[in-house]
């Protein structure tokens, strides 16, 4: 909140700068603004930017760097008796100090040395904050004064302002790239630390998954086992079930909407599918766990089948329902872009509508439909809440949809939610799973988008 206040101060200074710049430009033109190079508002904007931009940059940079420096200083100044021995202890102690400082509960009783470190942490932080405040305000004022001094009749304020804004625009469009880079870097760094403990091939091809055993060091098999094959298999099983539901229903709905439905019907059906698409996944998860899973279990028992209460079938079916609108709207686009002339050609030969659809439209739209299905598969693989709430935790390697299986996303959530022992193989495994998930879905998306784009070009 304090840095937020500082931000408001800087914004206030910028507004003042705007007024000052504008006033000075009018003054410089001795009242006749036509002899200025730019409109007075551009001079105002120039001064506002000169005041605000460096100050805000400094503020952001400071906020990012200060915690690192403070933490380092606190840890370096620790009483030697409690100096942490390895990276795990280091981060654990740091978390404790941080939690103490912000008044949260901590995992163990705080020793006087820790309390001292905490006080040091707090005082360093407040010193840091006040220095930051002073520096930021100084920079803002300096910028204001300097920019104002630049204002003169011939100063090309508009060009300067427009160039600055253009750079800002470029920076904004780079954020998407930075996000991707951030995702890749953070996943790869944490995964590398994981693979330093668990061999890469054991992770990728091992068939035994039980990360829970790794919590207590004294336990036998303390390293845990991180063979992710059961997770991949479970993910694929649920995705397959979902696609078996969503594929036919979504595609047939799209065909019906595009080829048969009259406008009145479409006006009802389209929003209905959109509602289905807009329902948050946590709602589907609740629906799967509370309604569908018991239903399937009940049916199974009534015909003498043993169904797990968190069966893959329940999660898969509900995920399929979630994906129906996704498949149908993508397929709808694809089918609509098949040129009318092909339909005419087929009708002109005396084909019925369904013959035209099956023999002409679908073959023509096939690449696009395949692309749509690939995107749907990628969506199903990455879906989290439904499986977290309705699929199991046990890593069974099975193809039986009535048993409980677990998925990659479920494991990521269970590994990272709950107790916060960072840097253990257990939590790092989540990042390795995230890395696999990211690259698989990325690959599917890239292929799918390329297929769809090629298809579009064909008929454009």
């Amino acid at each position, binding site marked *: 909140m304090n840095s937020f206040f500082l931000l408001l101060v800087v914004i206030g200074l910028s507004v003042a700068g705007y007024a000052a710049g504008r006033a000075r430009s009018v003054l410089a033109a001795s009242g006749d603004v036509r002899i200025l190079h730019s409109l007075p508002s551009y001079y105002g904007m120039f001064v506002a930017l000169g005041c605000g931009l460096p100050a805000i940059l400094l503020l952001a940079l400071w906020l990012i760097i200060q*915690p690192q420096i403070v933490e380092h200083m606190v840890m370096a100044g620790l009483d030697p008796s409690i100096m942490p021995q390895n990276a795990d202890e280091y981060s654990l102690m740091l978390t404790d100090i941080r939690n103490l400082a912000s008044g949260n509960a901590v995992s163990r009783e705080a020793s006087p040395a820790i309390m001292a470190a905490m006080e040091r942490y707090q005082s360093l932080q407040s010193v840091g904050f006040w220095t930051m405040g002073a520096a930021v305000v100084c920079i803002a004022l300096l910028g204001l004064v300097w920019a104002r001094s630049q204002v003169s009749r011939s100063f090309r304020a508009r060009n300067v302002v427009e160039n600055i804004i253009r750079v800002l625009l470029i920076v904004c*469009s780079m954020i998407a790239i930075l996000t991707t880079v951030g995702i890749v870097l953070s*996943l790869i760094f944490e995964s590398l630390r994981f693979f330093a403990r668990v061999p890469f091939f054991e992770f990728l091809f091992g068939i035994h998954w039980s990360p829970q055993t790794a919590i207590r060091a004294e336990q036998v098999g303390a390293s845990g086992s991180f063979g992710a094959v059961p997770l991949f298999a479970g993910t694929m099983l649920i995705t397959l079930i979902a696609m078996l539901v969503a594929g036919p229903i979504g595609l047939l709905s799209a065909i019906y909407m595009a080829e048969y439905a009259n406008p009145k019907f479409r006006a009802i059906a389209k929003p209905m599918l959109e509602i289905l698409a807009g329902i948050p996944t946590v709602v589907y998860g609740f629906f799967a766990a*509370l309604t569908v899973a018991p239903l399937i279990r009940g049916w199974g028992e009534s015909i003498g089948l043993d169904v797990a209460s968190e069966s893959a079938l329940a999660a898969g079916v509900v995920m399929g329902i979630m994906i129906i609108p996704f498949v149908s709207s993508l397929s709808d686009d694809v089918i609509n872009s098949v040129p009318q002339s092909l339909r005419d050609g087929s009708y002109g030969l005396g084909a019925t509508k369904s*013959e035209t659809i099956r023999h002409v439209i679908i073959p023509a739209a096939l690449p696009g439909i395949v692309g749509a299905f690939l995107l749907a598969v*990628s969506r199903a693989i990455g879906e989290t809440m439904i499986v977290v*709430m309705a699929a199991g935790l046990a890593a069974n390697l099975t193809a039986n949809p009535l048993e409980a299986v677990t998925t990659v996303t479920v494991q990521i959530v269970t590994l990272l939610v709950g107790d916060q022992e960072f840097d253990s193989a257990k939590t790092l495994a989540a990042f390795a799973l*995230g890395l696999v998930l990211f690259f698989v879905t*990325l690959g599917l998306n890239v292929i799918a988008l390329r297929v769809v784009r090629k298809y579009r070009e064909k008929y454009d």
Partner: protein
Amino acid sequence: MTDAIMNSKPDTAEIRRPSPGGERLKKRYAAERRFRLYGLCSILAAGLMLVFLVGSIVGTGWSAFLQTYVKLSITFDAEYLDPAGTGDPAQLQNADYGGLMKKNLRDNFPEVTGRSDKRKLYNFVSPNAGYVLRDMVIADPALVGKTLDLWVKASDDIDMLTKGYVDRTEAEDNRRVSNAELAWYDKLDNADRVETRFNTDFFVNADSREPEEAGILGAVTGSLLTLLITLLLSFPVGVMAAIYLEEFAPKNRWTDLIEVNINNLAAVPSIVFGLLGLAMFLNFFGFPRSAPLVGGMVLALMTLPTIIIAARSALKAVPPSIREAALGLGASPLQVVTHHVLPLAMPGILTGTIIGMAQALGETAPLLMIGMIAFIVDIPGGFTDPATVLPVQIYLWADSPERAFVERTSAAIMVLLAFLIFMNFVAVLLRRKFERRW
């Protein structure tokens, strides 16, 4: 079936003509009807699933908007509240209201004697009922020593009993309400001392371990704070990025890369954004856990592609003639955009933004990663306070074993859906109102 053709040229005469009418045509039309039916059934199936989903949620959730109250005769016994008779507000504030409530329960049910029965009796009303008494006394100290008939909030088990979720025919061990409790309840019920009222607490309380005290205001506040951050970050950045890509960027490999990248980012699973938030914002930059600030930042990165894509298509829809006209009058490219193109594209951009915000509002998985899943009893007051959001609250309640949380989960879902419907409705209105055909 070879029809005689007028002309005797042999080659085409050999091609048979379809027989008029007949079996085959019937079959073809049957296939046609079948196919059409499949399509219709698919849509109906999707519709049915939607109805089933909404129906099951409304069916289990509507009762959460009601809460059972029981009428007890409450004596504000001075012995508990103010034995010395000082009337000191501090004394009244700290008096043993829990004990007072227990005593009153014993007085209302004098037939209860056994220890375990008494303990059950204390669970008949909400554990927070004592605080209600306290608030009454503090508001009106003159109550001390008086006896009143008061409506007291019942506990969740009794609430479930009133709403008919407890099966009386089942064996006593299998139900949450014992025979003794049933007897007390029936006694009150026969005396018209049981009533259900609109459950205001559900809308004004934050989370609680007690279902009858749990409300959604904390989560709603958390959602609003988070969305505010998301909007403040993603809207300006998204619009500026779209402006650059659509209006200024040269067509080269670099902008191609940005474009492909944005499209792919839109399809990255949301949980991966959560991992990014955890590794970057929490571990690397040391931002606070569970804070709407970090949640908003993660969701902003997630909705950014949606906003950029929507904003670009809105900008693209503005005809080039307008740009040319403005350029022809000597406006700089930036002036063209800010004075002409952007205002015309704004409705489309806003529609896309609202849809992106609706997505962000319903998002759960990435927020679990950054710790917004903590159990938080206070309504968050700022961007760095620990908070939870509505979908995460739903997830938390869905995991709770008490039957009373099931209906609250459904009710919270109804509230969430109401917000989403409202947002989409606004987006549709906006689109209708400002839709322009060039």
